[in-house]
């Protein structure tokens, strides 16, 4: 450390110490505005605040030097800011939402998988489908077209089965089991999801994890870097045996399903390093390219227990279908969702408006441009994907 810098550090400490001994706020400010003015580490002083630079601080620092030298700990007051490392941030709890639990496979056979967090998956009826492969697009520049092909899953889409529901009561056991059995056969035949969580909280593997499942259809999601179109291949489909009742607070699952969902989400996130913000509901991702409206499917449009399954409230996240692909929404969508998705709609509209303003075009024109780019990208997907557009 150079001697000039050393004396600067000392001066800062002295000035701080001295100011604390001035009780009157105004006098303290007067003192600091003179004494501390030369403490700015940048050599380039500018503006009216720096006009007192010069002799004053040196005089005060020199006068206080002896006292400070004897009584104050030395501190590197003017060294450049050192940003906390990721480990330090995690230790401080800043990145707790981005950390993954330590979950591992304990035992596996043809019928069952058991994990260290207590999750058990019934694999007896698991089937194969086409191997997972999907394209990603640049979330900042969807107009750049298809960027690359990938195979690793990036998130989870939560569904409801919309199947027949009978009261969840002990004397209904036989009927409940019968309905679930039929449901599993149906979704297996359709390759509809990767996992099904029945009303007793049992987790059934439907389509094997390495394959795509036909769960999301026409759909859109994006994270900070990538835009994903038609999420059958890129996202896991996890469905809860439940039925949607439109509006806030009515769709519900059993406590056993919530518990199982928590363990399943924890395992999938740990195993595949899925970011929390990529774990969303079908209603958030579903789109209809025929009328360019979001929310073709509205399962889990409200009331998905994000907090209970260990995720942040992803209902608050803007909807990429709106702000990256130019989709629109209508009143029926708002009516079938509730205030939580209304928040996301508002944010999405604001984001679209901001980008349009930056480009000096009307929001409506920018939306049309996004719609054209979306169609172009879907066309490219159809052309280059062996199974069509992944729907």
């Amino acid at each position, binding site marked *: 450390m150079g001697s000039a810098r050393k004396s600067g550090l000392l001066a800062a400490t002295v000035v701080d110490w001295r100011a604390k001994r001035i009780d009157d706020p105004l006098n303290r400010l007067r003192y*600091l505005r003179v004494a501390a003015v030369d403490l700015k580490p*940048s050599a380039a002083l500018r*503006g009216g605040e720096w006009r007192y630079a010069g002799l004053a601080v040196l005089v005060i620092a020199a006068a206080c030097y002896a006292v400070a030298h004897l009584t104050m700990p030395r501190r590197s007051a003017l060294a450049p*800011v050192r940003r906390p490392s990721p480990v330090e941030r995690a230790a401080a709890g800043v990145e707790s939402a981005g950390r993954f639990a330590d979950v591992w496979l304990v035992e596996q056979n043809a019928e069952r998988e058991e994990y260290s967090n207590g999750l058990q998956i019934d694999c007896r009826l698991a089937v194969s489908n086409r191997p997972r492969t999907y394209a990603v697009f640049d979330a900042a520049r969807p107009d750049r077209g298809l960027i690359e092909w990938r195979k690793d899953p990036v998130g989870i889409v939560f569904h409801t089965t919309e199947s027949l529901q009978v009261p969840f009561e002990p004397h209904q056991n036989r009927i409940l089991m019968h309905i679930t059995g039929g449901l599993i056969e149906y979704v297996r035949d359709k390759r509809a999801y990767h996992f099904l969580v029945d009303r007793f909280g049992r987790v059934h593997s439907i389509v094997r994890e390495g394959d795509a499942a036909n769960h999301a259809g026409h759909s859109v999601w994006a994270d900070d870097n990538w835009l994903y179109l038609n999420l059958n291949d890129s996202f896991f489909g996890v469905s809860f045996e439940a039925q949607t009742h439109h509006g806030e607070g009515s769709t519900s699952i059993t406590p056993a399903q919530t518990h199982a969902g928590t363990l399943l989400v924890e395992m999938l996130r740990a195993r595949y390093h899925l970011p929390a913000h990529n774990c969303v509901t079908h209603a958030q991702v579903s789109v209809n390219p025929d009328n360019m409206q979001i929310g073709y499917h509205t399962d889990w449009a409200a009331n998905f227990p994000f907090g209970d399954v260990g995720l942040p409230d992803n209902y608050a996240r803007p909807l990429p279908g709106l702000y990256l692909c130019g989709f629109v929404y209508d009143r029926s969508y708002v009516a079938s969702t509730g205030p939580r998705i209304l928040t996301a709609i508002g944010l999405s509209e604001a984001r679209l408006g901001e980008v349009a303003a930056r480009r000096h075009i009307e929001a409506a024109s920018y939306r049309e441009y996004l719609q054209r780019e979306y169609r172009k990208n879907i066309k490219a997907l159809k052309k280059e994907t062996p199974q069509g557009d992944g729907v």
Partner: protein
Amino acid sequence: MTDTTKSNLAIGLDVGTSRIVAARKTEQGFEYGSQLNAFLTVPSSRVTENALKKEGVPHTVEDNAIWIHGTESQRFADLLNSEIRRPMRGGFLNSGEPASVKVMSEIIRLATGGGGKAGENVCFTVAAPPLGAEPSLTWHEATMKQVLGDLGFQSRAINEGLAVVYSELVDCNFTGIGISCGGGLCNVCFAYLSVPMLSFSVPKAGDFIDASAAAMSGERANRIRILKEQAFHINGRQPNQLLQVIDVYYDDMIRTLVAALNEGFQNAKNLPQLPRAIPLVLSGGTAAPKGFRDRFEQILRESHFPIAISDVRLAADPLTATAKGALMAALSEM
């Protein structure tokens, strides 16, 4: 001249897009005068003029129109179901409003209780340049000096965020981050031992919320602002759709502010290493609703802000803190 007499000759003036607040030191403490930074023109008529005079409503008559200035313009805009006009936009004089300078002069005169006395000093606030931009505020600052000079004041400018630090962070030796959340801008200043180290503005604040919520709900922006100031509590569970919409845009504004804070501090060079965590203080009318501080702190703590923050505070009086800080600056130079 005694200290008290000298104090009487200093004014702190918060020149905000939404409000103009003047602060003075009295023997009892501080005294404030506040005016909405807005005006309204109505067709001139003898009857209207007499009614305004009788009611003591500040106005001038010019060009076959009656100009109603300041806070009262709001009441008349409501009565006439029209929007008020604003001499400032986005933190600076509104270049789209030809009468802006003339109107500002009237409103400052109202807020300060008349023109300047001999030797009276005004320290007035100015916005920092937007994040990443070079300072280019000379026109606004020079015009304000001209306006204040014409009213008889001697004036100098102070950064708005720094004024918040001077007002609220005396216990930390004026070290910390001051943020003034106003109508047009959020002004941020990091000061170290009273010296500004980093300052910038974020062009998304109360007006953005009002305009966006108005566009989405069909209400007038005026009405949104009143509703926001009088009956709004940021808590994510709003009783009706209009409040929910306001909540949405508040959330967006806070997230934008936090993102800008992260960007600004991560890209800043030559900041001092701080021996301890520093406080952050929020001020301004946009920060006033209940729950704002909590929502801001939650979003800030979730982000990867590179400076350790000891506590997030709300100014003792968010509406007057900036003017008080400007007054502190004026007094400290006497």
